[in-house]
């Protein structure tokens, strides 16, 4: 190996180590602050490490700020959104890729148009709609709009296009109903992609902020990030408390990510290969 190549290799590892340090450090530091006692957290010279670790901040944010309630809300919303959008994206993505029907091109085009509409620009009429049907402050207000996620449909559609049509055609010639084909052949085929879409939507839903803040005005119905931002407005000066809140909000997603990395990364990658 030439000297140039060896320097390049060493440089690559060094560069990656610096980048990884830059991404991980802020997260680790916040976790560390969460474990500090009040004076240490706001000392003129910041500490890297809690010299007298304490759980007081974590206990405070959970007990005094009802973090458990928000966690439950986030869980319900993210899980329901995930399940619903898997069902919706699965069937639509499959049909758009592999079933011929009148208006297919139009529907495909509409789905692509949906991708290009900045959904946060729609919150005003959405709020009015939900207010009219008295569903503001209900989980439905978060679940239903999030389940209308065109990206999920596009991902499944692209994935199904990659699966040879012959498999399905054989079943059709056997005279199986379209529904049976879907259940017994298509679903197992697209399971990996669906799982990936599911995890992606779970994470997006968990982290969503603007619409949940608008739709959930009752404190007991708020999701974790919304509640965290509200607590932040009142207690931003309590560094330890806010650091604990931030950590407790991020940690579940990091764990979900680590556990489902395989599926999650797949959906991210598939997203790049569409159209």
């Amino acid at each position, binding site marked *: 190996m030439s000297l140039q190549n060896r320097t390049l290799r060493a440089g690559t590892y060094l560069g990656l180590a610096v980048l990884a340090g830059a991404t991980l450090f802020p997260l680790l530091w916040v976790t560390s602050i969460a474990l500090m006692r*009040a*004076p240490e957290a*706001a000392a003129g010279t910041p500490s890297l490490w809690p010299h007298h670790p304490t759980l007081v901040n974590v206990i405070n944010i959970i007990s005094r700020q009802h973090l458990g309630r928000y966690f439950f809300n986030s869980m*319900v919303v993210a*899980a*329901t959104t*995930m*399940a*619903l959008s*898997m*069902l919706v994206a699965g069937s639509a993505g499959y049909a758009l890729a592999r079933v011929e029907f009148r208006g297919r091109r139009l529907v495909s085009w509409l789905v692509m148009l949906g991708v290009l509409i900045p959904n946060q620009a729609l919150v005003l009429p959405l709020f009015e709609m939900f*207010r009219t049907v*008295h569903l*503001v*402050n*209900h*989980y*439905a207000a978060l*679940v239903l709009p999030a389940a209308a996620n065109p990206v999920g449909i596009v991902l499944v559609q692209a994935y199904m296009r990659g699966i040879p049509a012959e498999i399905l055609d054989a079943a059709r010639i056997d005279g199986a109903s379209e529904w049976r084909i879907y*259940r017994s052949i298509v*679903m*197992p085929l697209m*399971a990996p992609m669906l*799982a990936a879409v*599911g995890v992606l939507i779970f994470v997006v839903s968990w982290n969503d902020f603007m619409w949940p803040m608008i739709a959930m*005005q*009752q*404190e*007991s119905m708020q999701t974790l990030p919304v509640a965290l931002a*509200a607590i932040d*407005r009142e207690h*931003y*000066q*309590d*560094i330890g408390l806010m650091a604990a809140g931030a950590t407790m909000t991020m940690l579940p997603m990091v764990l979900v990510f680590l556990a489902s990395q395989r599926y999650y990364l797949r959906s991210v990658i598939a997203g790049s290969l569409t159209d």
Partner: protein
Amino acid sequence: MSTAFGRAGAVVALGAAILACAGCAHAPCGLNVWAIGSEADALERMVPGFEASHPGVSVCVQELAWSSAQVRLLSAVAAGDPPDVAQVGDTDLAMLVTLHALRPERQIANDFFRGAVHVTRFSGVSYGVPWYVDTRLLFYRPDILRRAGFDRPARTWRGWLRQMRAVKRILGPGQYALLAPTNEYEFLEVLALQQPEPMLRDGDRYGNFASASFRRALTFYKSLYEQHLAPRIDDRQLVNLWWEMARGDFVFYVSGPWNIGEFRRFLPPRDEDLWMTAPMPGPDGPGVSIIGGSDFVVFRVSRRAQLAHEFIRYMLADQQQVRLYELTGDLPARRDVWRLPPLANDVKLRAFRLQLERVRPFEAIPEWDEIMDGMRRMAARVAAGDASVRAATAGFDRTVDDWLAKRRELLARSATPTATSPRQSDRPTEAR
């Protein structure tokens, strides 16, 4: 794989059940009460006492967030579905009165702070019962002030300015005489209220910020930053203002009553003497300040008005007013309660007691919050040297006139019954 989908199906079913049940039956409420933030928590803890004295009545307290309370109340009124009783702050009252949503209230006590009652009145009729009150005044470091040669904070702008300059000389680098965060409007609002002319004119139809009065207030405000008596920072850049104040980074801070509790929460008891409160200085003598707080209102469509009034009466009894203070730090709206412990014994509360007698309400129109927010932005530009006082105030008047266009149109058609004589119908500012 079908089991995975079975599981997904189960999640959907569970989700659907939760969605469906979000509106499902609670125990029937004998009285619906909406309250905001920590006051809702406090109410919930006081409700059992009321229920004990009213057998068979169950009170449901619903908690709103400060940021969305107005939207919630408006939506509920528009939908014909408001609660029986609600805690209402600042501009919300003006809007609800405009909507004919509220019942006129009789005074249930004669020892309310006058300013607090004043702000519930529209065209001479009162639409709310003051629950707790709020104002802004000086928090300061008595020891540093003494080192600079002064016994107590000055009563006039001129004297105060002299004190701040003297204090600044004995402070270290990076330390300031005054903390006046540029993202808060209350301090400038107080300075402007201390002037003879109001901030809006012609029955709150037009902005009056180019007046000599407001320009005087803004010039004073600007000079504090120009002379480096106050840093140009917003409160997000503070890590912990109570420690910073204890360290001597700031000597004066204009703020509200909740900070008494916060100082005690963040500083150890031995540091109690490091901070004190004093009434606002004024242009030429003791200054007025703003009056804020929350009121109880009863909605017109409520069929339980009798019970609602009993509830309000219960919450305004001595014991409950003291309890509210203990739970939240909210200052009782009734003067007599201040003679009871622990309020009577607290030296830091005395300045609040004095200041609450010297308040001036602001213009009670729904646009007021937006106008104050705009004023804050305009003042920040002036303080940063990006615009002159004259140009900024003239430009801001045009903006305010734009915002008030619809109000003028409605007044012209006399579609709104709001009393409009300046400073008569006026309302306090936000309670937080």
